[in-house]
Each structure stands twice: as structure tokens, then as C-alpha cells.
């Protein structure tokens, strides 16, 4: 089964809902090792995405992600804004102007997104950042693709791996971003950006029709 613009719109819409629902939780994660704004930033950014979607409905999945990229870039601010903005922009570029995208295209877009984040933020796996959710997701997507999975299965695998990846940040000492200022004191807390990545990728799978993931 291939995914079209409806999926992309549904994904972004669901993302906005999920960011709003988890706003307080992401703020709380950021309060522990950052500056208490990640949930607010993401919520504000995805509300802007919703506004843009309503103004100029996109016609392809790539256009939808590009629109999201621009909205996130201009409304999120902080570290997450440029990082997610770049991720969505690179994904959009990878998707090009295809109307329908298949499992391979999805895996490619996820890879491009992750690579964009790494290019901008220079974080490596284990630095306790959103990369720790994106990289396992990209790997899982690749594996499922190789095993012949369809687009929905690829997204579902990515979502699950991102969720696990977010959890693995708990014991880590941060080496990038604001949490790194805390040194050892950053251990024992989940990285807020990894948590938001897991939520966004779960929304992508849900939007593709995959039954809701396990409650956290």
C-alpha cells in the first residue's frame, strides 16, 4: 500500500494534536535538564503547521512536509526548530513531487531527515539528543524494508524503534544541546527531543492506519 497526500496531512494534523496533548509532559522533561520550553515550542510550531495547512492545502506528501518544515523553522525557535525544520525539509526533498510514496521512499525520507539533523546539530548516537530516537528509527525502517515490509510496516517499525531509542536516553550523560551543561547531572532523565521524535513518528504510523501503539 502506498501513501498519498492524505496521509501526510493526517500525519501533520495528528502531530499537532499529539504535541498539544503532550505539551506539559515535554515541558516537564525539558525542565529537568533544559529550560522548560520544548513542549511549548513544539506545540506552537505544530499549531502554525495546522494554520498553514488550512490556508494552502498541499497537493503532494512532499509539499506537505515542506510546508511543515517552513512553519516549524519559523515558529518553533530554540534548537528543535532548525533541527526539525531541516529534517522535514530534507524529507520533503527526498520525496520530491510524487503523489504516492512507497515503503522505499518512506525509508529514504526518514534517512534524509536524520542526516539533516546530524548535519546541522553534529550530534552522534549516544549524545542524548533526538538523534537517539531518529537513528534507531532509520535503522529499523531499513530492516523492515529489506524484509519486504510495506509503507505502513516501515513507519510502524520506525515508530517503535524511536520509542525504544527515546527510553535509552534515560541513563545517558548529554554531550550536545542545553542538557550537556549539566554534565553528569543530566543522567537519569529522558531527552525531550528524543521523546518528541518518538511521538511524531508514532503519529506517522497511526496516520498510515497502523493501530495505535502501546500506551506509554
Amino acid at each position, binding site marked *: 500500500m502506498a501513501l498519498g497526500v492524505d496521509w501526510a496531512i493526517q500525519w501533520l494534523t495528528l502531530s499537532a494534536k499529539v504535541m498539544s496533548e503532550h505539551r506539559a509532559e515535554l515541558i516537564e522533561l525539558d525542565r529537568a535538564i533544559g529550560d522548560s520550553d520544548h513542549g*511549548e515550542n513544539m506545540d506552537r510550531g505544530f499549531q502554525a503547521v495546522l494554520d498553514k495547512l488550512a490556508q494552502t492545502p498541499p497537493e503532494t506528501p512532499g509539499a506537505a512536509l515542506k510546508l511543515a518544515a517552513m512553519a516549524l523553522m519559523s515558529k518553533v525557535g*530554540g534548537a528543535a526548530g532548525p533541527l526539525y525544520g531541516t529534517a522535514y525539509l530534507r524529507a520533503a526533498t527526498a520525496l520530491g513531487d510524487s503523489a504516492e510514496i512507497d515503503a522505499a521512499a518512506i525509508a529514504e525520507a526518514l534517512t534524509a531527515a536524520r542526516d539533516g539533523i546530524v548535519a546541522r546539530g553534529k550530534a552522534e548516537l549516544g549524545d542524548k539528543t533526538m538523534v537517539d530516537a531518529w537513528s534507531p528509527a532509520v535503522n529499523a525502517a531499513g530492516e523492515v524494508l529489506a524484509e519486504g515490509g510495506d509503507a505502513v510496516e516501515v513507519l510502524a517499525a520506525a515508530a517503535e524503534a524511536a520509542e525504544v531509542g527515546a527510553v535509552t536516553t534515560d541513563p545517558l550523560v548529554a554531550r550536545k544541546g542545553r542538557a550537556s551543561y549539566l554534565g553528569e547531572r543530566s543522567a537519569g532523565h529522558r531527552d525531550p527531543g528524543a521523546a518528541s521524535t518518538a511521538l511524531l513518528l508514532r503519529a506517522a504510523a497511526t496516520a498510515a492506519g497502523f493501530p495505535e501503539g502501546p500506551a506509554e
Partner: protein
Amino acid sequence: MKKLINDPRAVVEESVEGFGMAHADLVDVHTDPIFIVRKGAPVAGKVALVSGGGSGHEPLHAGFVGHGMLDAAVPGAVFTSPTPDQIIPATTAVDSGAGVVHIVKNYTGDVLNFETAAEMAQAEGVSVRSVLVNDDVAVEDSLYTAGRRGVGGTVLVEKIAGAAAERGDSLDAVAGVAEGVVRNVRTMGVALSGCIVPHAGVPSFELAEDEIEIGIGIHGEPGRHKIPMEDADGITSRLLDPVLEDLEIKSGEQVLLFVNGMGGTPLSELYIVYRRAAQILGERGVKVERSLVGNYVTSLEMQGCSISVLRLDDELTALWDAPVHTPALRWGM
């Protein structure tokens, strides 16, 4: 949470609006996107200075827009760096053709957003030079961190680079002056309490009645470590000693001593800290040539302070003394 605000999400917008009304003689306020420019900008032939960052550090940066300091300030949401769609128009609005220096506090968010904005402004034909401020000795500058933060020293960079721009220095020269200040200023801070980010509604961290946080930044984040409460003289040593060590200040040198309040500490207490800091410098044979005491780079209503030391030479002293006329810093005119 008790604050003199209306909608927590309108804090920056309404505050900047009030700021614009109170200082209509000095600044113009742009809304959607929000940025503040010096009245009459661009100033013909002058290199422009643009800075910005999360809100909550007032008077930084908007309070330093005016003659002899910034040409534009770009406020983000509270403790959140501004976005390129604010920084770009601010940059183009104040460019006279002589180029623009971006003064960026070293935080991942600020760096990335200013980086994007600089690229895009360049694409629109503006020459942009970026200067990173990273004066916080509390953070180790190593592969294991995002590098040192920009904190209190930022105001000194803005004042001195602003004076260089005002006297007609070239783009490279102004950037060079700013970098010279960055190389010679170090800061360290302490918090006696956290602060409450309006949209979060709860204190950024909790401290017991007898605990303080040493090595805090300016975003209500916890510091390097908690210690039991000490007296002002003891705390002053804890802040000043690493600053002096890192700067390798020697007997006979001249410095500017800056005791900065985090927003919720009475001025009288800042002077008690200043007193001890000046004594320590005196004991080490260091001459305090210039001083600044007050709330300039704050963290909402946080209680605490930071101490910055800037190594002075005749050039920097002259630029520091040059006339400045902004809402929050003014002399000589």
C-alpha cells in the same frame, strides 16, 4: 504562579509593545514577526549590530538598542531563541550597506537560527559576520558539551562593539572588536532560587531552604552543582576565582568588574557582592578600572547574580566610555 501578565503566551508580544511605547523616542517595534530597531536605522555608512535570543533576560537585548550599541534586537519566546523569519528582516532593516554583525550567545538554538538567518540574509545581499559569545566558565568547553554559554558578558560585547560601529569601524573591524571582548571576558553565576517560565507555570528548579546552585546559566536551568548556602563573601570567591583563573588575570592588569543581578535580587545585595569582588581583585593587585552593577542580563525573577570580569586595555576602555543612549544603558549623551 503569580506574575504581572495577561495571557502567558502573549507575554513577549505585550511586553515588547509596552517597551516600544515607553521608548518611542529611541526604538521602533515591528510586530509579526517581532523585532526592535533603532530609531532612524539604517544609519548611513554605519556597520549595524543585531543581537537576539530568548526573552526573559530583559533588559537584554531590546534594552540595548540605540546610539552606540545595537541597531536591532530580536526577541524569541521566553528562553527560546528567535527564528530566522524574525532575524532576517531585522538584519535587512538595519543594513546600511556597510554590513551587519550578528552577536549570538552560544546556545545550540541561537547558533542554528542565526546561522540560517545569516545565510539567507547573505543571499539577499547583506554582508553578515557572526560573533559567538561564550563567556560562562561554569561550562567546560569540551567535546562533551555544546561549548560555553553566552551569559552576562554579552552586554559588554554589545556595548563595546556598538561603540566601534558608531565611530565608523568597518565590518571586519567591528567583528574583530567584538571577538576581542569575547576573548577577554569570563563570567560565572549563582542562583538562590529558580524562576518560573510563564508557559510552564512551575519553578525551573527547586532548591531547599539552605541550598544554592553554583554555575547556573540564564535560562533557569540547574547549574553545575548544588551546595549548602554560604555567606556573600564565600559565594563571591566561588564565582570570581574560576573567572580569574580562566582569564589568567595577573597583578597589574586593569579590568572591568560587572556584578549582574539575575532579576530577583535586591541591588543592595549586588553591592555586597561587588564589595568583596573588588576587595579580592585589590588583594591580587588587579586594578578595577570600570564597574557595572545592576540587573542587565536576567533570568526572569531568579534570585542570584553573576560576576563578569573583562580585561581592559586603553582601546576597550575608550570604547566602553564612548557615549551610549539606549533604554537601559546611557551615558555621555
